């Protein structure tokens, strides 16, 4: 029987013996005669071989096994240790090959060397090699559900830390920097490989698993005020603002300087007060919302010969860079340079110190993220018999339904590590066993299960339950209330509909939508509903004769109808502007919307 062969999804021909063909393809690939980017898979249902060399396939390295014996030998390892061999040498020698998802279907990969049988085709280099970089930084990863593990790894990437040592000469957008980053007590093999201690992004906290007056319900956390004052979670937020002197046709160009009072759109002297002679703020200036940080004027938008006669013409426009609504900070760094096109470019970096506050987001490395619900003075925090007050109180209800056993393990691991002054190896699939840690805790004079007697912070009463307490590595995530807080009582509206604008950046309102409307209708709260939708109410004059919206002329204090003229009765009605708009749209479609007025009472 012949087997069809497809190369990158295209039919290329048939082969007589599929096994020989696949074997040949693989040996040639391992020999290096065919590109190592190639993968082949036999599908027994379709009786077809799919050979792939396209980009975009996920592939992972494994050790090749022959007759139950891995091709990677002691000799290789010795050479690797002496730096005589590198990774690419192993790939070229056919010791390690990359499998894609399809070829993995035909392969039998042993998890461990001791599992090897003659049927196995490959051997895992290390179980840790299944994970990506950020996932392998998490300790005891084999003790959580895989889905949570993945999300946890994703959370890790949002953490605030020391992202680059040369941050002070960089102009990165939206960057956070943790002031006192620490190395975690529970580490993994990847921490050494990735040199995590050179750029850590979290801090070791003493965590008590305890509820605290309802302020840590539903994934909230309670922080110790003293811990924050000692520097926990303190970070700086950097945001650069940039402006460029653009060139326009006709030899006109932007001008970075303090704007003249005559220009169009001049704000107010107060807004420009922080600018120096060159039109740029001075470093270390404290700036608040609406303050101008780069003063700039642009040439008029439309140029025509008429300008010679008009008085209003030839006036330059204001185009300064000002702080957005709700923003504040300190000018950290000013850079004046030139860009690729030779235009003058000014960049101003703003800095804002961020002390943890209610609503900021924190996470452990075990999918236990939460926002700060309360900051408690150290005096009111519960304490252990040895006098330890926790830095953070974590709600025990977050554990059972999520089954994040790794959280518990990391805590007793870190407890033993901290007390013994050593780092704990928590590498996924290859961690220090729980039993050993338990024994170590006993030898240190603690309970083996990590619980301790605690006392109420305010009354000093002993808590009936023993509390699970220990150090945990916590990360501050970049989502902070300061960047998200929004409120509005009045503010900008849209030009077309006269309804409030949308979104925080435009100081918008929160939409009271269709379903929200239904709730008020269901309650019969008719007047409240009307009031909610009053945001675009208008009073329009209506002609009683033809039912079309009439015109009110405030100069002559006269009302007249565009159809019936002045000899008609015109009355005011109150409707939403959106409805007036739809009446106009009807008229534009050739539909005559006639309003028939009658007294409501």
């Amino acid at each position, binding site marked *: 029987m012949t087997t069809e062969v497809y190369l990158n999804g295209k039919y290329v021909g048939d082969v007589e013996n599929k096994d020989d063909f696949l074997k040949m393809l693989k040996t040639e690939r391992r020999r290096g005669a065919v590109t190592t980017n190639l993968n082949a898979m036999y599908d027994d249902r379709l009786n077809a071989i799919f050979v792939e060399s396209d980009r975009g396939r996920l592939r992972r390295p494994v050790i090749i096994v022959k007759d139950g014996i891995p091709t990677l030998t002691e000799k290789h390892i010795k050479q690797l240790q002496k730096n005589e061999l590198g990774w690419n040498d192993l790939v070229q020698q056919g010791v390690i090959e990359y499998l894609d998802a399809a070829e993995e279907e035909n392969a039998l990969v042993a998890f461990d060397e001791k599992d090897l049988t003659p049927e196995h085709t490959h051997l895992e280099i290390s179980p840790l090699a299944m994970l990506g970089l950020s996932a392998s930084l998490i300790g005891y990863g084999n003790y959580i559900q895989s889905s949570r593990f993945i999300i946890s790894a994703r959370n890790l990437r949002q953490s605030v830390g020391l992202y680059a040592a040369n941050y002070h000469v960089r102009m990165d957008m939206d960057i956070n920097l943790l002031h006192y980053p620490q190395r975690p007590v529970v580490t993994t093999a990847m921490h050494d490989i990735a040199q995590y201690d050179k750029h850590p992004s979290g801090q070791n906290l003493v965590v008590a698993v305890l509820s605290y007056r309802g302020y840590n319900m539903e994934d909230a956390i309670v922080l110790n005020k003293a811990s924050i004052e000692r520097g926990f979670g303190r970070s700086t937020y950097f945001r650069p603002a940039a402006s460029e002197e653009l060139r326009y046709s006709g030899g006109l160009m932007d001008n970075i300087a303090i704007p003249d009072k005559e220009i169009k759109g001049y704000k107010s002297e107060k807004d420009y007060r922080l600018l120096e002679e060159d039109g740029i703020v001075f470093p270390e200036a404290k700036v608040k919302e609406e303050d101008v940080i780069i003063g700039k004027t642009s040439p008029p938008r439309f140029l025509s010969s008429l300008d010679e006669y008009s008085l209003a013409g030839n006036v330059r426009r204001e185009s300064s860079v000002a702080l957005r609504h709700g923003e504040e900070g300190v000018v950290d760094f000013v850079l004046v340079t030139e860009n690729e096109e030779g235009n003058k470019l000014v960049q101003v970096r703003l800095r804002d110190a961020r002390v943890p506050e209610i609503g900021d987001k924190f996470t452990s490395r075990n999918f236990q993220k939460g926002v700060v619900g309360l900051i408690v003075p150290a005096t009111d925090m519960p304490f252990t018999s040895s006098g330890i007050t926790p830095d953070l109180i974590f709600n025990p209800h977050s554990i059972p339904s999520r089954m994040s056993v790794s959280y518990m393990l990391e805590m007793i691991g870190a407890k033993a590590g901290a007390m013994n002054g050593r780092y704990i190896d928590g590498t996924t699939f290859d961690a220090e066993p729980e039993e050993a840690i338990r024994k170590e805790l006993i030898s240190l004079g603690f309970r083996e299960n990590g619980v301790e007697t605690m006392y109420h912070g305010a009354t000093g009463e002993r808590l009936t339950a023993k509390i699970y307490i220990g150090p945990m590595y916590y990360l501050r995530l970049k989502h902070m209330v300061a960047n998200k807080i929004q409120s509005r009582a009045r503010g900008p509206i849209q030009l077309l509909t006269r309804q409030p604008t949308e979104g925080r950046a435009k100081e918008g309102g929160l939409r009271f939508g269709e379903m929200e*409307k*239904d*709730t008020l*209708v*269901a*309650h*019969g*709260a*008719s*007047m*409240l*509903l*009307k009031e909610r*939708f*009053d945001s*675009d*109410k208008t009073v329009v004059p209506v002609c009683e004769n033809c039912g079309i919206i009439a015109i009110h002329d405030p100069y002559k204090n006269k009302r007249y109808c565009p159809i019936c003229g002045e000899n008609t009765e015109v009355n005011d009605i*109150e*409707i*939403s502007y*959106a*409805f007036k708009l*739809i009446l106009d749209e*009807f008229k534009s*479609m050739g*539909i*005559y919307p006639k309003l*028939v007025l009658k007294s*409501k*009472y």
Partner: protein
Amino acid sequence: MHKDLEDYDGKLPGKMLQELEEKCPAGKLKKAAKRLYEEYLAVKVDSGESVGVVAAESIGEPSTQMTLNTFHFAGAAEMNVTMGLPRVVEILDGRKEIKTPMMEIFLKAPYNKGKDIKEIALALKETTFGELVTEFNLNVVDLKIDVKLDTERMKQLSITTATVVKSLEKGIKGATVKGEGSDLVLKLKGGEDKGLNELYKLKENVRKIYISGIKGIAQVLPVRRHEEFIIITAGSNMKKVLELDFVDAMRTTTNDVQEISEVLGIEAARQAALNEVIRVFEAQGIDVDIRHLMLVVDTMTVSGTVKGVTRYGVISEKSSVLARASFETPILHIIEAALVGESDELNSVVENVMLNQPVPIGTGLPGLVAKIDKEKLEHGETK
């Protein structure tokens, strides 16, 4: 009626009065009736209560929790039934063609004891010619098809070769049928211009020809329910099934609401729609008050035919242009209203929300009434 209850005639429902008279001692009737009337008034929905929105929310909210489950029958013959949200949508939309039509056929006394139940069920099932054939042999030279019949199957269904020939003759044109025992020959009529193509088409057509059973009944499954045997079918044909003399027409039912409306009338359809929705909710363990559902099925059936809650059904019945336009395809509704010069009285909720007027519901309903002395008003006197 007892004289103590006469005052309440017309004020309280007849059924309530009857029950009260039956269960209450005569001496206490007057007091009890008074108390009952108070209670009855207290429990009534107040005027201005937005029952529609409340019903919509009460059905809509738990519906979001339903899963898209299909329910499997345990038994030899596998039968799928649409359940969950898709089924609710199907019923409330008033669909003509439902995904899995199903019947529950109850049988009259001697037949429901389980004797020969399989044979009865099998006789109901629609049998086509294709199912009775083991082999088709296309003979291109003689332009004929030799057919081998499945005699065992035919015996089971008590079909003879003669009846098969008869139905085939009725069903096909352009071919002659001859048959004896388990062999059957179909011969194309006419000349040499015909070939393999025509022969193949004949074979495919002949497969679908109806031989026996009830049209539309695709599968049958006899099931024991409590003390008797009933037949559950996939596919539905209520009219034909009810005509059979061994079927208990009082209890036999289908899950196709439209069909019930056609066969049994609109009141039956209302009850059927209600039962079907309740069944879905109950299967999912969702508790929705029956009155919300009754309101919905009532609005669906008031017009005398089953109308779905869609823009073609219930919504198209709304008197207000703006209300119709606010629910799907606004331009269409406005153009149609403009063509005939419709006017909108602004009597309902949506229109008033659009105009930013108080909606005529709840607190928006009552107006302030003041007594004004007309004479004084005319003389321009005010107090």
